[in-house]
């Protein structure tokens, strides 16, 4: 009897939520529940996931979907999106009426849509491990005390290095202090002096890395003073970190500064560098490539550096917590079902599946399990001291305007001094973040 009322209440809440679609989102006081029985027979939930799920952990997706369908009777239609254009597609689609029910976005991308009413409020307690969610992921989801998305997975950047080169250069173990790190880089360079193509550290214009260096010296990107955002890159502590990164690139890296970190695993696998800074899965990507890149189930072929790589946390450097969240769109016609699917896809079973694929789960409580997973120890440790981009509504615009990359390139090419470039970047950040 009680259950029937609860179901009715849940349904009513869903209908109310659905009715609120299209009108001012300020009046949306109801949150969508992801618990309780919902009948989804004959309905299809449309899910937008990014390609990473398809190519790396499709089994987790399939498993969660199976359990969801068994519980609710609803079907699931999954579309895998590309990183290059998914936001444009999302904008166009959300403007219309045929919207996806569940959408995955990068954690830095969520704030913008949450602020602008793109996603509907959810019942936080419905989701497993929600009390220990990684704040780097959940920060983008919280607004005015409500939760608008669910953390999905995370990746932390670590140091990936060549064990064989370390040995032949006389380095016995991965460095644990930044000074050691630099000393090791020197040793690597000395051991490979004759190879003109060799650069001890492969570091392209990776702004996440540069900002990690900024955070390491106590600097910051931007803070909110009252209701105005202020860029902090020109502060002395930030400049110190920036300069450290610039010095590292200039002295030890042969990477093309016009490139970003997209292809770094492939380039590193050619064997002309000793260390690079990337996500844990990039170690696997550097060691093995798919024989048929288009086939998700293709055989793997070893590269030149297979079996020669290991990971370790980058000493004294907090890692950027990259990752994705999942949200239920405000215009969705199947909010409760969508929320349920997310529940299954982010519960502990699914998280275990993700851990086994080498990515980090969405909560600190599970980080120890992740650390137990071979290959993820460094990442799990790094995740404990991680940072996140400023939780500003317009942060995604700063990224779109490539402000960070521009600043770093200006310094590397000598166009601006570090201080001038940082000042320019702050100006841009202030303008964009505080734009009304």
């Amino acid at each position, binding site marked *: 009897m009680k259950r029937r009322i609860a179901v009715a209440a849940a349904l009513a809440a869903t209908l109310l939520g659905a009715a609120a679609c299209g009108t001012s989102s300020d009046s949306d006081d109801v949150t969508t529940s992801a618990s309780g029985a919902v009948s989804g027979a004959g309905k299809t939930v449309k899910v937008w996931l990014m390609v990473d799920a398809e190519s790396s952990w499709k089994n987790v997706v399939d498993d969660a979907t199976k359990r969801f369908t068994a519980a609710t009777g609803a079907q699931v239609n999954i579309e895998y999106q590309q990183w290059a254009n998914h936001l444009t597609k999302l904008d166009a689609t959300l403007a219309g009426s045929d919207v996806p029910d569940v959408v995955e976005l990068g954690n830095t991308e969520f704030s913008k849509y949450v602020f602008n009413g793109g996603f509907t409020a959810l019942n936080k307690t419905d989701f497993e491990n929600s009390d220990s969610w990684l704040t780097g992921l959940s920060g983008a989801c919280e607004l005015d005390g409500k939760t608008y998305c669910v953390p999905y997975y995370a990746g932390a950047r670590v140091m990936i290095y060549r064990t064989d080169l370390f040995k032949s250069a006389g380095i016995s173990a991965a460095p644990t202090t930044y000074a050691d790190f630099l000393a090791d880089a020197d040793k690597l360079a000395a051991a490979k002096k004759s190879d003109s193509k060799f650069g001890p550290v492969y570091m392209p214009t990776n702004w996440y890395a540069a900002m990690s260096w900024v955070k390491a010296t106590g600097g910051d990107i931007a803070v909110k003073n009252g209701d105005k955002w202020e860029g902090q890159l020109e502060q002395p502590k930030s400049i110190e970190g920036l300069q450290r990164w610039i010095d590292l690139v200039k002295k030890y890296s042969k990477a093309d500064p016009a490139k970003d970190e997209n292809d770094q695993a492939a380039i590193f696998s*050619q064997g002309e560098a000793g260390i690079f800074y990337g996500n844990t899965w990039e170690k696997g*990507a550097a060691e093995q490539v798919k024989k048929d*890149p*288009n086939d998700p189930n293709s055989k793997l072929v070893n590269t030149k550096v297979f079996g020669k790589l290991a990971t370790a946390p980058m000493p004294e450097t907090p890692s950027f917590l990259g990752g994705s969240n999942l949200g239920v769109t405000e215009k969705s016609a199947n909010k409760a079902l969508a929320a349920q699917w997310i529940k299954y896809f982010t519960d502990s079973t699914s998280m275990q599946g993700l851990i086994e694929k080498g990515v980090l789960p969405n909560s600190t409580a599970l980080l120890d399990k992740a650390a137990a997973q071979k290959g993820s120890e460094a990442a799990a440790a790094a995740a404990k001291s991680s940072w996140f981009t400023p939780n500003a509504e317009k942060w995604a615009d700063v990224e779109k305007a490539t402000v960070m990359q521009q600043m770093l390139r200006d310094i590397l090419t000598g166009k601006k001094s570090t201080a001038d470039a940082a000042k320019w970047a702050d100006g841009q950040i202030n303008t964009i973040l505080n734009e009304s």
Partner: protein
Amino acid sequence: MVATAPGRASRKSATPAPRRKAAPDSDGTVTVGRSKAGTFFANLAGIVFFVIMIFPVYWVINTAFKPGPEVLQFTPSFIPEHPTLDNFVSAFKAPLFKEDLLNGLIVTVLAVIGALVVGFMAALAIARFQFYGRKAIILVVLAVQLVPFLALLIPLFLMLQKANLTNSLIGVSITYLVLILPYTVWTLRGFIAAIPRELDEAALIDGCSRFQTFWRIILPLTGPGLVATSVYGFIQAWNEFIIINTLNSPQKQNLMAWLLQNQTNRGTAWGPLMAGAIITSIPVVIFFLMIQRNIAAGLTAGAVKG
């Protein structure tokens, strides 16, 4: 423009090369008064031009036949050391490749045929009639080619969605049709205008209706024009990727969009990308080869009549 020289025609030329050949290939070299050395250097320049022009094409083909590890060598190989068809197979087996190939063909063919039909009619109107508003229509057709289509993406999307035409091949076909329509109208207009009105008049006097005149006389004579504009239209529609990317789901993309998606977040797979690029280019190349004689004829249509 070519308002010259009825009088000059009487002057005998040193080289008896006939002037009235329709195909510009067979005749052509102007060798009167040219030195042998000049010809030699010209030929050399021509060959250098060929090499430079074809090099990127050759590089696409070269890369497409290399296995992955060989592609990523620091020392590029100019002939694949381990030639393989794997990249092509990979492309064909790739998810959605065949579907996207089919989608692209459908959308392109529909758009081109539609544009030809609609454009021919409009071109007829402009070229064969004097009527109130004619100049305005011409102005619109000319001016509309300036509009950056991309800027219209969101209003276009919203409009098509209301009509339930998003995520459909028909919606994209219609959009492409409109994309290539202005150029089609303008070009066909020129071809039709070059057909002498006397033919129309003669046919009308002989008892043909207006419609029959168009169908039996003008349409066949516009043949080269139709071919020329269909080439343009085909290339435009086949190559487009931004519009179809925005309007349709990943399941309903064309081959160009498929190519763009080959860049995963794990780095670019160059071998399969180049193989895909070749496959994507083949229909256009075939189309070109089929009509290349007609391109030349189309270009010089009317130039050597009478």
